C-alpha cells in the first residue's frame, strides 16, 4: 500500500487538473544494478515518490539451506552478494562454526582474511566503476575492471575459480597459498594505491562530479541509525561502526588499519569513504601477507570429506561479519542433525535500500540515479 503523496500537482495554466507521471524504472534498465523495479512518481524532473518493488531475483536461498547438509549451502551463499562472494561464505561458515568445536589454525585465519579482503577490494572497485557509469563517465569503469581483473586472477590462483570460490571450510580453508602467491599479492598492493590515485584524479576533484554528488542523497546520522544502515553507507553518515573494529572476528584485531568516517552523509561522502576503504584494505592485505605464519590450513578433525558430515550441536546463533556492503548476519538454527533447521540471512543491501525514498523524494531524476548507485546494492543480496 503506497502512502499518500506529500503534494498534489498545481493546476496548470488553463486551470485544469494535472497528474503526476508514474513511470517504471526497471526491472530492465541500464542502471538499476540488477533487477530492481522502482515505481517512480514524477512531477516533471522532480521525484515525488519512489517505491522499490523487490523480489525479481528471489531464489529462496533460505529455504534451500534446509534441504542439504551444511557444507552444500556454502557455494549457494556465494551467489548472494555476487560482487564480493568470498565474504558471504565466510559469514556462513563462521556462523556454523559457533555450533561446532573446531579450532581454526592461525594460518587459515590469515588466509581467510586475505581471501575476504581481496573480495572487498573487488567489490569497491566495481562500485567506483559503476558509480562513474551512472554519472556518465565511461572511462573509470574500464580502469576499475582492469584492477579487478588482477584481483580475480589472484583468487583464481588461490582457489581455482575467479568468483564464487567456495574456499572457506569448517575449521579452515580449502587450499593453501600456492608458491609465490603471497609475494605477488604484496607487490600488487604496492601498485594499487597508484591506480586509486588515478581514479581520484578523474573523479574526486572533478567539478562536475562534485556538483552532481555534493548535497545529493543526504542521509543524516539519526535517520541512518533508525533505518539500521551499516557499512560504508553508515560510515559516510557519521556512524563510525565497523565490525572489524568493534567485534573483531578472526584475526582482525592484529591488523593496523583506520576506519574512514565522513559526516555529510551525501553521495560524495560515500565515494570518499569507499575510496579510502580501498586504501585501508590494501594495508590490511599487505600486513596479512607479511605476517602470515606457517602451519596447517584446516583443523585435522574435519579434513577432507568429513566436511560434508559435520554435525553441529543443537542451538542457534546469530553471527555477523563486515561484508563489503555492510553487516551481513547469519542466524543459524541447528537441531543437532546434519541439515540446518533454519538459516536466516540479514542482507546488508536489503536494509541499506530502505532509506531510498527518504533520500530521493524532492530531488531530480539524475539525483535518484546517483543516490541509488551510491547505496551499493546488489540484487542478489536484496532478494536472496
Amino acid at each position: 500500500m503506497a502512502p499518500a503523496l506529500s503534494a498534489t500537482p498545481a493546476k496548470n495554466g488553463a486551470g485544469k487538473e494535472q497528474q503526476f507521471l508514474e513511470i517504471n524504472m526497471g526491472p530492465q534498465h541500464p542502471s538499476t544494478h540488477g533487477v530492481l523495479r522502482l515505481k517512480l512518481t514524477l512531477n516533471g524532473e522532480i521525484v515525488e515518490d519512489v517505491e522499490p518493488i523487490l523480489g525479481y531475483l528471489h531464489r529462496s536461498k533460505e529455504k534451500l539451506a534446509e534441504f542439504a547438509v551444511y557444507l552444500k549451502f556454502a557455494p549457494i551463499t556465494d551467489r548472494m552478494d555476487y560482487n564480493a562472494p568470498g565474504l558471504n561464505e565466510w559469514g556462513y561458515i563462521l556462523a556454523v562454526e559457533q555450533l561446532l568445536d573446531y579450532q581454526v589454525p592461525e594460518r587459515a585465519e590469515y588466509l581467510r582474511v586475505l581471501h575476504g579482503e581481496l573480495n572487498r577490494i573487488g567489490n569497491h572497485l566495481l562500485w567506483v566503476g559503476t558509480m562513474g557509469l551512472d554519472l556518465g563517465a565511461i572511462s573509470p569503469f574500464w580502469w576499475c575492471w582492469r584492477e579487478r581483473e588482477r584481483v580475480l586472477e589472484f583468487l583464481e590462483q588461490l582457489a581455482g575459480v575467479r568468483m564464487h570460490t567456495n574456499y572457506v571450510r569448517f575449521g579452515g580453508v580449502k587450499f593453501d597459498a600456492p608458491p609465490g602467491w603471497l609475494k605477488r599479492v604484496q607487490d600488487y598492493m604496492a601498485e594499487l594505491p597508484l591506480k586509486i590515485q588515478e581514479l581520484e584524479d578523474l573523479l574526486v576533484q572533478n567539478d562536475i562530479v562534485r556538483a552532481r554528488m555534493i548535497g545529493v542523497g543526504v542521509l543524516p546520522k539519526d535517520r541512518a541509525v533508525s533505518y539500521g544502515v551499516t557499512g560504508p553507507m553508515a560510515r559516510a553518515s557519521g556512524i563510525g561502526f565497523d565490525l572489524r573494529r568493534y567485534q573483531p572476528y578472526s584475526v582482525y584485531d592484529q591488523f593496523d588499519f583506520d576506519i574512514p568516517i565522513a559526516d555529510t552523509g551525501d553521495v560524495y561522502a560515500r565515494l570518499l569513504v569507499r575510496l579510502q576503504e580501498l586504501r585501508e584494505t590494501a594495508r590490511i592485505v599487505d600486513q596479512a601477507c607479511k605476517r602470515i605464519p606457517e602451519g596447517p590450513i584446516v583443523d585435522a578433525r574435519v579434513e577432507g570429506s568429513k566436511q560434508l558430515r559435520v554435525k553441529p550441536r543443537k542451538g542457534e546463533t546469530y553471527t555477523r561479519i563486515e561484508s563489503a556492503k555492510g553487516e551481513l548476519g547469519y542466524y543459524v538454527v541447528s537441531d543437532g542433525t546434519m541439515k540446518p533447521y533454519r538459516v536466516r540471512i540479514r542482507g546488508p543491501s536489503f536494509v541499506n535500500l530502505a532509506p531510498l525514498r527518504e533520500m530521493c523524494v524532492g530531488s531530480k531524476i539524475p539525483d535518484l540515479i546517483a543516490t541509488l548507485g551510491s547505496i551499493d546494492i546488489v540484487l542478489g543480496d536484496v532478494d536472496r
Partner: protein
Amino acid sequence: MALFDAVAVTDSVLDAVAGVAGLDSPRWLAQLLVWLIGSVLIFSIVLTTGGLFTLVFRRMFAFITQRIGPNRVGPFGLFQLVADGLKLISKEDIIPARVDRKLFRLAPYLAIAPFVMAFAPIPWSGDLIFSNIGAGILFVVGISALSPLAEITAGWASNNKYAIYGGVRAAALDFSYEIPMVLAVVGVILLTGSPNTNEIVMAQRQVWFFVPQILGLFIFFAAALAKAGLVPTDLPEAESELVAGYSTEYSGMRFGLFYVVLFANILFIGALVSTLFLGGWLSPLGDLHGTTILGFGPLPAVPVPDPIAWILGDGLVWFLLKTVFVCFVIFWLWLTLPRVRVDQYLNVAWKVMFPLALLNLVIAAFVRWFFLG
C-alpha cells in the same frame, strides 16, 4: 582567392558535349547538375565521416581504457562501420503499435536534413566551398536551430515516457544554448564585418580569432556541445537514466541515422570552430608568399616547391588538421567527463553563459573599434 565556379565548369563541359551533337545546352541544366552532384557529395561526406567517427571513437575509447577496439574487420577495423551499417539495415523495422506513425518516420529525416544543409557554406579551402552565400554563418546558425525539432518529434512520436523525457530535455537544452551560441558567432561577425564564411576566414589572416575572442571560443564550444547532445551534456540521451532518451523506440537504421548524426555533429562542430576561431583553411605559416603574421612582416617570399607549398601553405590540409584536432578534443572530453545535471546546466546557460556572451560582444566591439579601425 578565386572561388572554384562549379557551375561555369559544368556549363562549359555541357557546351562541349552539346557542341558535338550540334545542340545548344540550356544554362539551367548545368546548375541542376551541380546541385545534384553537390548534394550527393555533401551527403556522402557527412554520413561517411559520421560513420568513420564512430569507429575512431571506439578505437580512441579502447586505447584510453587499455583495450584494442575493433581491429578485425578490414585494415585497422575500417570496415567495421560497413559491418555495423549492414547489420542495422538488415534489422527488422519495428514501429511500435501506438506511435504517431507519420511523425515517428519523419523524425530521423528531420534530424539529418537541416544538419546536412548547414554544412554547405563551410569553406574547406580557399576555393572549395559548396555554396558561397552572402549570409554564410547566419544561414548555418539558422538552419541548425531546427535540430531540436527532430528530437522533440522523436520523443513525442514514440509514445514512450522515457522518450518524452529525452525530447523535452533536448528541447530545453537546445533553446537555452541557442542564444549564447549565436552571440558568440555575432562576436566573430563583428570582427569580420560580414557573415560570409570565406570572408571570416580571410579576416583572420592577421591573427586567428581565438586570440581576441577566447571567451567567445569557450562559449561557442560549450554551447555547441550542449546543442549536439555530447558529453558533458548528453542529457537527452543519458543512457544510464533514460535508457536511450528520445531514440528509445527506434531500432535498425532509423536508430542508426540518429547515431550517425550524433557523430557527424562532431565533425560539424569541429569545422565550425576551426572556421570561426581557428583560422579556417589559413596556415599558421602564412601562405608562404610574403604575407604578414600577427602584424609582423611582410615575410620574405619562401621559394618552396609546389607540393610542399600546397601542404604547408593555406588550404585544405590545414582545415582538416584543425577540424580533426577539435574533434579529438571533443572525444577526449567525452571520455573523461561525467554528465551534468539538467537543471544545473540550464542554470549555467542563463546565468553564466548568457552574460558572458554579452560581455564577449562588448569585447569584440572594443577590439574592432581599437585595432581594426
